[in-house]
């Protein structure tokens, strides 16, 4: 393909590393589009999770390609942090929802200037 990152020998077969990278890139972009386009705050958070997952995939791919375990450990950390961030984000949303029913994140625009 457009990049030459070598091949991975997985259980006897070869797979191009590039495939994985492209998949991750596409997932990431789809997640980005979702964040930009969707208006339900919950869905936005979900799309952010999708992006994080794509990043994790990239990390693990490179970890396998470079045969260095650091990538997986980093992905583990990222996963943990993503969980924590999702928790806090949802907590904030719950707090906002106490005041009013937010169907459109554009309603939360009082910090304007």
């Amino acid at each position, binding site marked *: 393909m457009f990049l030459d990152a070598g091949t991975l020998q997985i259980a006897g077969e070869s797979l191009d590393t590039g495939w994985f990278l492209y998949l991750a890139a596409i997932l990431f972009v789809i997640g*980005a589009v979702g*964040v*930009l386009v969707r*208006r339900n705050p919950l869905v936005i958070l979900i799309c952010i999770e999708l992006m994080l997952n794509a990043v994790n995939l990239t990390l693990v791919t490179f970890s396998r390609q470079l045969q260095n375990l650091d990538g997986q450990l980093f992905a583990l950390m990222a996963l943990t942090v993503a969980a924590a961030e999702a928790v806090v984000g949802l907590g904030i949303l719950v707090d906002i929802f106490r005041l009013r029913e937010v169907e459109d*994140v*554009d309603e*939360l*625009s*009082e*910090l*304007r*200037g």
Partner: protein
Amino acid sequence: MNWLPLTILLLPAVGGALLAGRGWRWPRMLTVIVGPGVVWLSFLAVLYGYFTDVNVDQSYWTWIKVGDFTLPFNLILDHLSLFMCLVITGVGGLIVTYAVGYMGHEDDPSYARFFCYMDVFVFSMLLLVLAGSFVFLIVGWAMVGLSSYLLIGFYYWRHSAVVAARKAFVMNVIGDIGMILGTFVIFFQFHAVTYHAVFAAMPKSDSGTLELAAFLFLVGAVAKSAQLPLHTWLPDAMEGPTPVSALIHAATMVTAGVYLIGRLHPLYDVAPYAHHTVAIIGALSALVAATIAIVQTDIKRVLAYSTMSQIGYMFLAVGVGAYAAAFFHLLSHAFFKALLFMSAGNVIHAMDDEQDMRRFGGLWRQLRGTSISFLIGSLALVGVIPLVGFFSKEFILGAVFSNPDPLSIWLWVVGFGTAILTGFYTGRMWWIAFWGKPSSSRPVAAPQEAPAVMLWPVLVLAALTIFGGALQSKTAIGFGTTLVEDYLRPVVGAIAWPANSLDVLLALATMVLALVAFGWAYLMYVPRVERRAAFLDGVAEVAMASPHPWNSRLPWAQTLLEHKYYFDELYDWAFVRPLDRLARWGDRGDRRVIDGSLAGVAGWVRGGGRELGLLESGYFRSYILVFVGGAVVAGLLVLWRASTT
């Protein structure tokens, strides 16, 4: 150290200062004493100087001393300036006394203001004639212009008065510029500005620089004396109270130009082009003014144009070198013109502030005293023996006639014609205002004669008019005295050419023809039904088949004269409108460009702030979009760097 000149100068200043500072709170009596009083005291000082034959150029204080250039504050009290001081303080004193009664209806602060301005004017005029250097001459010159402005616009709540005052001041400033530039030229040439130094160093032959200086001073003189072409302010100046018209615009300020040329005669004697121009301007002004006076309906305006005309005679005299003649006419004009203005003032006062002559009529029967004084003044103006006007006018015309210069004979013709016209318009004025039946539109049916305080100055002036001829009779009728000429000879020199034998004959001829014109006016302007001198009617029947007024035969002439030869319209088109446009353009520029740029900068800052504020819309999704956009840009940068390195 001779303190006399300074005393003469400062007495009116003290009066003016006191009235300015405290006068508005004084009782009227105090104003009456201080206002005219300081002028009379100054007059006494002048008399003292006359009788002790003072002749001094006294420096009181050195103002500037730079290297070898010194500018002192010096006052010159020689025969010429003493002569002028006599006129200023004497006639001025009479007029200011007259004003005590005339301005009586004003309230106290306004009354004090009037006398304050008058005192300031007298002080300024004295400074003008006493100044021993060009610099202080200009100071006095400018202050006189200021006083004139203040006094013309005395009734400042009247739009016409304010406009007239401004017009007078602007034209005076044009003259001031001429004076200042002339002084610069003098300084450039002589490196000194006192009369003493400059006249001592005056070269005997002409040069371009001297001509230039002479012309520049001429501009100043023309502006101040209301000669062509800077004359348009004088008729409008009649907006001021009548005593102001009498003092400033008849007796003193407008004669400053004559004094100037007389004082600077060493300069003009060696600058023949400028000198001739003086005479030409004088003659033309005299003629033009006389023609315009024929159609004026406001009695004060007739007198104003008459003043312009008589000053034209004075300019004519100094222009040919007959300085003593000019100053004698200045003196006599002061007498009879002040007399005329004050009598007119009495009439106006009696007629409840009406100034249109056509609404008078028949005052001879009701205001006998004023009518007689007005008649005396009028006949002096026409130049009838034995009044002083005859002697002074014929002195001038005789000197001009006998002058060997080839130009002079033409000037004499103009002067002669003007004298006849003078008779005509003066007659018209007198007959319309005083003779015949009272006009149907008369404001006051039974007018009262003026109070004593307004009458006795008039009587004094009438006496001076009647007997003043005794001062200088020889030049007009061939025998008698030459007191004025002799007195002024040390300063201005004698008349450099012999008198012509025809002088006396011509003098009498002029007088006769002027009187004929005076009578002609009777026929023209007093309607048939009102004429009481039946024999004159008979003459009229014989002389003219049907006496029509001239203006029905020449309507275009009537229009031309009524519009004063369209000078005002010309100046308006040439100067006022372009300046107005320029001012408007400047105003637009100022508002749009300067204010606009300042406001524009402020607007940009505000607008920029507003625009930037839009970035903080509060919409989370917009922010994210910007994130992504920024990430794209950053990524492109990285790529670009990577590709170039």
